[in-house]
């Protein structure tokens, strides 16, 4: 029971890291980026290449995966996304789906469609006995890393000057611009960090989420659930949503093996019936 709870929390925290970038950019620019999973995939594959082919140590490959995905994010944002910000949501949907198709097809063609497994260092393969429950060291590691990142994000957002500017820009872009805040640059920076985090999540999650070319589409629903249910005006909303989702999914798979992700969708539907604008919603929704 404790194992399941812990596994669920680990799953949820990775989901949070994966989806947090999407939540912030949606809230910031009202931009529906369905290609978010592509950056996660990029980070995952970068990590896999580094560790499996180039022999880079796992712990070093993690920040490198972050960087790779972040750089890809900046590149794509500056060259492509920037032209689509003011378009309708339908246009954004079509555009980002197009990007997903391109990315998925390219990865499938050049690397192949088999699942990627990232070789873990020995100390992360151990299983530990904690409080009577059997917990994998890797899961513990994942939870620790994600907890640190989540804390850094929250502190950064609430205490730093960048964080203040970001919050202002999310709250009211026009006024923020009027105050001299360069919303465009903030967006690029945020997009880069969000994509980087997605990439890190992709690499961290490869072990238990599975990494193959279908990743961006397979997990798109999960990202959207986290963002929609959690809302876009805080970090705590998506965090809670991701944790709930993670636990529900793992518990569902264990206790009701015939149903799979069915539980998640059912939970999501129920939550959205009760609160159509998300768990932690502002009084005015976008």
């Amino acid at each position, binding site marked *: 029971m404790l194992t399941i709870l812990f596994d669920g929390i680990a799953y949820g925290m990775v989901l949070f890291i994966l989806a947090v970038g999407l939540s912030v950019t949606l809230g910031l620019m009202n931009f529906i980026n369905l290609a978010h999973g592509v950056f996660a995939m990029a980070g995952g594959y970068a990590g896999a290449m580094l560790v499996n082919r180039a022999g880079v140590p796992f712990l070093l490959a993690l920040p490198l995966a972050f960087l790779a995905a972040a750089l890809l994010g900046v590149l794509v944002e500056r060259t492509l996304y920037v032209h*689509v910000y003011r378009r309708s949501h339908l246009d954004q949907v079509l*555009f980002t789906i197009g990007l997903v198709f391109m990315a998925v097809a390219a990865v499938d063609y050049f690397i192949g469609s088999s699942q990627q497994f990232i070789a873990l260092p020995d100390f992360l393969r151990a299983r530990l006995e904690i409080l009577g429950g059997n917990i994998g060291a890797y899961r513990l590691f994942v939870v620790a890393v994600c907890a640190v990142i989540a804390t850094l994000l929250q502190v950064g957002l609430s205490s730093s000057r960048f964080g203040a500017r970001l919050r202002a820009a999310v709250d009211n872009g026009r006024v923020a611009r009027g105050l001299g805040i360069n919303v465009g640059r903030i967006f690029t920076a945020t997009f880069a960090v969000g994509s980087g985090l997605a990439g890190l999540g992709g690499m961290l999650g490869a072990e238990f989420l599975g990494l193959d070319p279908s990743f961006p589409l397979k997990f798109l629903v999960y990202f*959207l659930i986290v963002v929609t249910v959690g809302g876009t005006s805080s970090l705590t909303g998506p965090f809670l949503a991701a944790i709930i989702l993670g636990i529900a999914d793992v518990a569902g798979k264990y206790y009701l093996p015939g149903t*799979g992700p069915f539980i998640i969708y059912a939970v999501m539907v129920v939550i*959205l019936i009760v609160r159509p604008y998300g768990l932690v919603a502002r009084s005015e929704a976008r």
Partner: protein
Amino acid sequence: MSAAVEAGFAHFRRRAAWRPLEYAFWIAVVASLLVFPRRLSFINEVAILGLFVLSLDLILGFAGIVSLGHVAFFGVGAYAAALFGLAVFADPLVGVLVGGATAALVGFASSFLILRGSDLTRLMITLGVASLLYELANRLSWTGGANGLNLAPDPVFGIWSFDLFGRTAAIASLAVLFLLFLLARRIVHSPFGLSLRAVTENRLRAGAIGIPTHRRLVAIYTVSAAYAGIAGALLAETTQFVSLDLLAFHRSADALVVLVLGGAGTLYGGLVGAIVFRVLQDVVSDLTPQYWEFWVGVVLVLVVLAGRERLARIPANLYRRLGLEGA
């Protein structure tokens, strides 16, 4: 005053009148059965895709509802027809009706979630419902899981069985497509259709002139789901097979691409687009499967960058000039 009133009638009559090119289109469609006697099963697939895209046009082109999960109704229709045929009664037309009715029910039930909330919520819910159904079909034993189900439908009207050459299939699908198209055309040119256009253009004002906006949107969403369900059921009956692929996301995305490129809101846009898309796909897929997906993605990106609305006006103007405007 009488002259003005006559001009008013003429305005409506002119818009709803059948254009010569519309007749030509349907004659060409029927003629294709004679001109390509060895590609009848291909024609069958194109007809079904056309019907599916038409169903999406009803909500996207005429009600402005963006859905990423329309395949859900397609799949529900297919599985319902299959299960009905296996468990109860194997008549294909009844199966198609059952498929359509089941999809309509699911559409009606989900419309209440879909029509509240923001664009994002809507996208997520449509995607979520489709994913949920995919998982259900995958896990439940009586849906055949990953292996799918095989059907053995009776002959149509007791006379024409589904032969290997696909002739019955193609004719049946085209007939259904045509009938449903006529119905859609009627709806579009009716006061109901006009009220939908009003709701899409300005929901606030629509309510202020007495239109029950929510009710109308639920109605068109249900009709659209029924159409998609019938398309799925047709595929099940004519190919005698249903599988998880009928609930796959790429079908929703493909239909969206076809409709947007063909021209949403014109009725014919989806049909012409379906033909072009499927023919191109056939040609390109022979090279590599990934090749096709990649280039669809590229086209999407380029079209949006170039300005979809500006580009969409090209086919719309073309259709209007050629007199092929269904709406």
